[in-house]
């Protein structure tokens, strides 16, 4: 391969990532404009409404734009699809690796986000290779309004909503016995079996609580020393424990991505010596596309619930 070809490949690779970074910085800067200009509150509200509607950093569209830009620089290289694919693998790895080292982003979040970056970006590459190689040599401009409409539609749907995830488990012990391990429980010895925990996502270890009364401080301790500070907000012995999360750790996997509001354990006596334990968590997800990241959030939260609830089950059923 000649030096000229390599130069074009690297230019495409750099340009695509620069476009991605430029989009992200532009969005961040735009959100700072009202504070810096000193807009009155109502104007600020309008401004944020407009910005969110029009140009929210879209995890779908920014990678596509990156892919199209890369394909533009690679247009004269007579690449096969396989070569486009390999070049895009390298190109799409640069952003997450850069975000990990430069912005201290969480590795698990980057791993979760990577498939979107990769697939959407490759869709952009496939579009770009056809747009810029077309024998008419005219860019199919219909893509631009399509991207704009998609951005607007995604922004329009971007209202943060509080969601809840619920899991239940049946325990072969009466509710009064289960309750002993609900308010707080000793440390878990068993290693987590969830694959994301094995590659670094913190897992719950133990819970401490000042006491079984409303207002009691509670701490949920995760591996890596992460601590969720909670306060008991509702308590009915042997039936219900609700706690508000007053402070969540400043972990890169959570910061700006997810806000946890509240947790709850409900015990239902099955009148046959067994108890159904229900775990609930309320959260707001700040990532988009919602359908994708919400699926992950539910999966991760469910595994946290089930790890804790399995531990409570083992302790309660111990003779």
């Amino acid at each position, binding site marked *: 391969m000649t030096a000229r070809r390599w130069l074009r490949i690297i230019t495409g690779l750099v340009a695509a990532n620069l476009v991605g970074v430029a989009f992200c910085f532009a969005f961040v800067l735009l959100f700072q404009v009202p504070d810096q200009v000193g807009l009155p509150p109502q104007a600020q509200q309008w401004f944020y409404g407009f910005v969110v509607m029009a140009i929210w950093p879209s995890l779908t*569209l920014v990678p596509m734009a990156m892919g199209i830009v890369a394909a533009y620089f690679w247009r004269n290289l007579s690449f096969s699809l*396989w070569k486009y694919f390999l070049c895009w693998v390298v190109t799409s790895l640069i952003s997450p690796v850069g975000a990990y080292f430069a912005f201290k982003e969480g590795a698990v979040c980057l791993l979760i986000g990577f498939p979107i970056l990769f697939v*959407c970006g490759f869709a952009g590459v*496939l579009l770009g290779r056809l*747009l810029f190689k077309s024998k008419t040599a005219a860019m199919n401009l219909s893509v631009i309004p399509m991207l704009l409409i998609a951005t607007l*539609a995604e922004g329009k749907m971007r209202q943060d909503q509080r969601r809840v995830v619920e899991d239940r488990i049946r325990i072969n012990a009466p509710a009064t016995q289960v309750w002993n391990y609900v308010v707080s429980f000793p440390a878990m010895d068993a290693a987590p079996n969830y694959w994301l925990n094995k590659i670094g996502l913190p897992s719950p270890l133990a819970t401490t609580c000042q006491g079984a009364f409303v207002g009691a401080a509670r701490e949920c301790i995760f591996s890596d020393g992460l601590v969720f500070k909670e306060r008991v907000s509702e308590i009915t012995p042997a039936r219900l424990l609700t706690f508000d999360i007053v402070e969540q750790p400043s972990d890169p996997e959570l910061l700006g991505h997810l806000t946890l509001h509240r947790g709850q354990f409900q015990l239902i006596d099955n009148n046959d010596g067994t108890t159904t334990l229900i775990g609930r968590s309320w959260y707001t997800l700040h990532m988009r596309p919602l359908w994708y990241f919400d699926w992950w959030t539910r999966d991760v939260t469910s595994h946290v619930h089930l790890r804790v609830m399995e531990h409570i089950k083992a302790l309660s059923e111990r003779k």
Partner: protein
Amino acid sequence: MMFKFVVKKLRWLARIPVLPQLFDAGLVIATMLFDRPRFRAMEMFENAVCRKDTIQRRPHRFGGVGFFVGRTEIGHLHGNGLLDLFVGKSFRADQVRRGRALPHHVFPESGWISFWLKSPADIADAVELFEIANMYRASGQFTSRVH
């Protein structure tokens, strides 16, 4: 199977901008990684038909690569190797009866046919069908109301 389900049950999603292209990119990646002979056949077919000066490749609105002469579509190739061509109703009946092609995967009664590219051995048949579609268009009878 997933393609069949999406095309039959979730066809309305194709109206959402960019979504068909994303879906097709997923198909291309899957084909590229898990079915190399099919993927090779897709590339060979694309190169074979685009040697003709009159044929232009463009992104297809339902995803994949569209093959056009001017503004007229001859056919399109999905990311899983499914080639859709417009050959008119009479040719369609003939090709389907002879087992050379399948009725279109969404509109079986239309003048469209479908052909699965599975390996490079299918290129000759695919190119021949493409020629029929191209000739049909050139004869001025091209009146597809389906796509």
